[in-house]
């Protein structure tokens, strides 16, 4: 220890002499430059001595530290740094050992200055690329110490910031040093990440720093800023397997510091993560968030809401990559939380409101996820969501236990997804296996839900943003005032309408006579009908829509069950609708006729006009008011001249060269009118089969494929019993009508229909062949069905001409 004696210097090894010489007499003078150069040269020329130089320097440094000769300590560190930087030899490895020991020594000191200087040296070291493996080198102490420095709580603001900054730089150096090299210690180990990540987040979460807006020049030396940079650096280096060990501590930190509510900081963190993470791993972050949501199942809805809010932002950023491999799983988790939240019926209104907020967040997020999917998957997702409705699951479940609130939420979800969908062609938007359940839902009990279903339909049908213009039932003399955007319907869409139009018509028709309808319902129906006319405004389709309007009118006139207000509303709706049809078909005589009827109504039956029927202000409060009301006096018996006359419309049409013959055959049958009155949920198993049989245009095979779970022996039995009795008459009528249709309908239409049918047959066949999981049973069901319906219902025989067309 006393080897500094000058007289002994000749006896001592050369490296010791060189090392001793770099220290000046007076510490104020700093490192002796010339001697330092000599030492460096020596080290470079005989690298095998480097480790000894290191050891000797270390010894000196220890002595200086003990004696609190700070200046000398700095000089020793300076020398070490220079040696480290200039020497790139194999033997650096051993030298590094001494070097790190010295850094640790300094870090253990209480002096902030020494700690900072040690960190600076460490960072320099971290930037050196070593070419030899160092399996045994461990950084535990450094991770612990730097993390602890990042949390520095020193009283003096300036020193505290310096120490924190040093700690953060040290952590960054550590990450840089170890991350790229497999031979180094695994920094991604949770032991380390659990210290590093919270330290970074702790510094990032500085309210005073967050407050400064992005515009103002940032204090680049602020620990918060540095922490952010280090954090980004860390994230972008993370590989597939290590993302989780970073995101995990982040989530725990946010939990512990209750940073989910409000979630600005959480959002900020995850924005950084999402922007920095390698794009292909983005979905892991999303998955982690989803899993974290699972952890919080029982937590306060506010917290859950915060998490989902973050999720939403994250999904927004990650775009296409957000979903990863398991699309449905993501939606399943979110839908499950939606359900849990709804089931979580809290008596407390405040809690309930929070839950509702959370539900809305979830729905928005689902929408955002869906937005990132290609269109065809959106339809899939909508079908998946619909699958969550009890009606569509197995029979036993239909017990009605399903919470209406959940249904409402699911519908909102559907709507959200639907709004993200851009319709191009209708056949793509509405594959039969999607369209049918959707339409089926349009007949739900709850009027509010029906409105939502209509909204879904509208957003899917509307391609030209006309929905807003048709939100209310209006009857302008000049329809062009509405400023509707129209475009000629493509051939494909017309074909689609020929195939599936009947389903739309039938459901609209049924919807009209729901006794629970409210003004909103009628308005929504009007909107849907008008959109259909606008988007698919081909002459023939318009004709069918006219026919639909007339049928509805007929229904209103003949039906006894509907309240007066409904009748008026429907009359008004039809007037407005035919008005639009007249405009779209640009048949001037029809438009004139509409105006004529409207004028008559203005004089004699104001209540049949939308201005009256859809004016929310003059709605009667009580039934008695309604009975006695002057305005309604004549509406029980609507005069003929106030109605739209089928023959006159036909005249108008034929005068402008349209084929009006089909207008006379009302295509809407009401085969189970009686049942409708009693049970307002019109769709039960048998009925859905009946629809298939009744509607000529329908595609029975598709229906069956989809609802094959509904075709049970029981239902077939019921059908057998019923069809022979109650429906006999209508059956006969139907038969006549089908005959009529084939006699009068244009050839193309018949072709289109049979084409559709054969397509479906084809699809069906494929479906059966594909269905390998339970082929025997499935086939059996089909056969049963086939024979059953043929034996009982002669309608199918009448369909043979259909096939002969080909």
């Amino acid at each position, binding site marked *: 220890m006393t080897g500094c004696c000058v007289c002994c210097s000749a006896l001592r090894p050369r490296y010791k002499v060189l090392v001793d010489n770099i220290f000046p007499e007076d510490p104020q003078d700093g490192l002796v430059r010339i001697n330092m150069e000599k030492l460096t040269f020596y080290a470079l020329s005989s690298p095998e001595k480097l*480790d000894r130089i290191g*050891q000797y320097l270390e*010894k000196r440094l*220890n002595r200086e530290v*003990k004696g609190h000769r700070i200046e000398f300590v700095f000089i020793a560190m300076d020398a070490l740094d220079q040696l480290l930087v200039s020497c790139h030899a194999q033997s650096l490895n*051993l030298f590094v*050992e*001494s070097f*790190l*020991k010295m850094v*640790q020594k300094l870090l*253990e000191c*209480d002096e902030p200055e020494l700690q900072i200087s040690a960190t600076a040296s460490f960072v320099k070291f971290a930037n050196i690329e070593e070419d030899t493996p160092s*399996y*045994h*080198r*461990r*950084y*535990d*102490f450094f991770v*612990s*110490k730097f*993390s*602890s420095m*990042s*949390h*520095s*709580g020193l*009283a003096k603001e300036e020193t505290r910031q310096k120490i924190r900054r040093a700690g953060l730089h040290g952590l960054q150096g550590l990450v840089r040093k170890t991350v790229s090299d497999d031979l180094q210690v695994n920094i991604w180990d949770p*032991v380390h990440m*659990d*210290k590093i990540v*919270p*330290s970074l987040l*702790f510094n990032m979460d500085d309210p005073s720093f967050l407050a400064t807006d992005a515009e103002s020049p940032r204090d680049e030396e602020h620990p918060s800023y540095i922490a952010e940079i280090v954090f980004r650096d860390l994230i972008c280096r993370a590989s597939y397997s290590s993302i989780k060990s970073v995101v995990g*501590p982040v989530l*725990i*930190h946010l939990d*512990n*510091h*209750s940073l989910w509510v409000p979630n600005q900081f959480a959002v900020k963190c995850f924005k950084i993560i999402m922007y920095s993470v390698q794009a292909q791993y983005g979905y892991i972050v999303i998955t982690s968030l989803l899993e974290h949501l699972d952890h919080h199942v029982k937590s306060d809805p506010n917290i859950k809401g915060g998490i989902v809010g973050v999720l939403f932002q994250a999904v927004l950023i990650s775009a296409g990559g957000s979903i990863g491999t398991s699309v449905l799983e993501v939606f399943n988790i979110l839908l499950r939380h939606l359900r849990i939240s709804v089931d979580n019926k809290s008596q407390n209104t405040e809690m309930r409101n929070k839950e509702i907020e959370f539900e809305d967040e979830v729905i928005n997020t689902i929408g955002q996820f869906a937005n990132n999917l290609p269109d065809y998957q959106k339809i899939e997702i909508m079908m998946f969501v619909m699958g969550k409705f009890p009606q569509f699951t197995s029979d036993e479940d239909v017990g009605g236990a399903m919470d209406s609130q959940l249904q409402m939420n699911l519908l909102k979800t559907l709507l959200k997804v639907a709004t993200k969908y851009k319709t191009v062609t209708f056949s793509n938007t509405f594959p039969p296996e999607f369209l049918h359940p959707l339409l089926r839902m349009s007949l739900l009990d709850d009027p509010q839900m029906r409105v939502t279903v209509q909204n879904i339909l509208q957003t899917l049908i509307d391609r030209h943003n006309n929905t807003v213009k048709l939100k209310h039932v209006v009857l302008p003399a000049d329809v062009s005032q509405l400023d509707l955007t129209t475009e000629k319907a493509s051939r494909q869409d017309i074909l689609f309408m020929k195939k599936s139009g009947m389903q739309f018509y039938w459901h609209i028709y049924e919807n009209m006579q729901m006794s629970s309808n409210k003004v909103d319902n009628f308005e929504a129906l009007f909107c849907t009908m008008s959109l259909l006319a606008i988007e698919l405004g081909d002459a023939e389709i318009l004709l069918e829509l006219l026919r639909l309007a007339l049928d509805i009118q007929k229904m209103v006139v003949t039906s006894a069950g509907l309240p007066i207000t409904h009748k008026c509303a429907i009359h008004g709706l039809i007037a407005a609708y035919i008005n639009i049809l007249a405009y779209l078909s640009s048949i001037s005589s029809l438009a004139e006729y509409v105006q004529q009827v409207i004028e008559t109504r203005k004089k004699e039956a104001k209540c049949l006009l939308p201005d009256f029927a859809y004016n929310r202000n003059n709605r009667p409060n009580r039934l008695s008011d309604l009975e006695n009301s002057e305005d309604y006096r004549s509406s029980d018996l609507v005069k003929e001249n106030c109605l739209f006359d089928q023959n006159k419309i036909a005249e108008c049409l034929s005068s402008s060269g349209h084929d009006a013959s089909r207008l006379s055959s009302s295509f809407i049958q009401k085969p189970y009118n009686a049942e409708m009155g009693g049970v307002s949920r019109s769709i039960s198993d048998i009925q859905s089969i009946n629809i298939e049989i009744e509607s000529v245009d329908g595609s029975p095979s598709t229906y069956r494929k989809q609802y094959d779970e509904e075709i049970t022996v029981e239902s077939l039995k019921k059908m057998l019993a019923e069809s022979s009795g109650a429906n006999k008459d209508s059956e006969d009528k139907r038969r006549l009508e089908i005959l009529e249709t084939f006699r009068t309908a244009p050839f193309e239409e018949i072709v289109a229909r049979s084409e559709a049918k054969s397509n479906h047959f084809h699809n069906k066949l494929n479906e059966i062949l594909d269905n390998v999981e339970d082929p025997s049973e499935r086939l059996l069901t089909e056969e049963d069905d086939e024979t059953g319906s043929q034996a009982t219902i002669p309608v199918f025989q009448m369909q043979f001409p259909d096939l002969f067309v080909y």
Partner: protein
Amino acid sequence: MEDYKYLFKVVLIGNAGVGKTCLVRRFTEGLFPPGQGATIGVDFMIKTVDVDGEKVKLQIWDTAGQERFRSITQAYYRSANALILVYDVCCQNSFDSLPQWLNEIELYAGSKVLTFLVGNKVDKMSKEIPTQIGQQFAQRYDMTFIETSAKECENVEKLFMDIARGLTKRARDLNLQPEENNEFPSGGSTPISTFSCCKI
């Protein structure tokens, strides 16, 4: 060359405000800081003591008691050789949360960790937890019990010296280096590498 024979990591845990930082500072710096603020995250101190003529270096990690820092402090006692679980003898609440702390220790700390239970602030008049109760509790969970006062410097030295002795004895008994996984003695004369002070 190293200036110590053994290196041990000691971690202090316990509720916020029981006097962990004061204990450490009393021991390492010999002073009682009045108006000590709450520790943020983790603080670090080092002290070398003499056990039977051998230098023993104690790395003392002083953790924050606040709930929000729980996750980062947990990360620290994973690798501890000794834990000091502190409660305030004048605060029933801090005593009541001991089982919770023990639970954490079981979850995160190594199985061989040496645990001390410390009732701090005995200088105060309004003592709520009698020595007897603390003693019993410590016995039940196989901890060493000691009552201290950082302010009056009572038993502080003894506490850390006991730990140093206990750990040294254990290290010698096992005839091992204190770090089991220290398979690479680095260049110096001592078998202990400071870089291998990790074990899970």
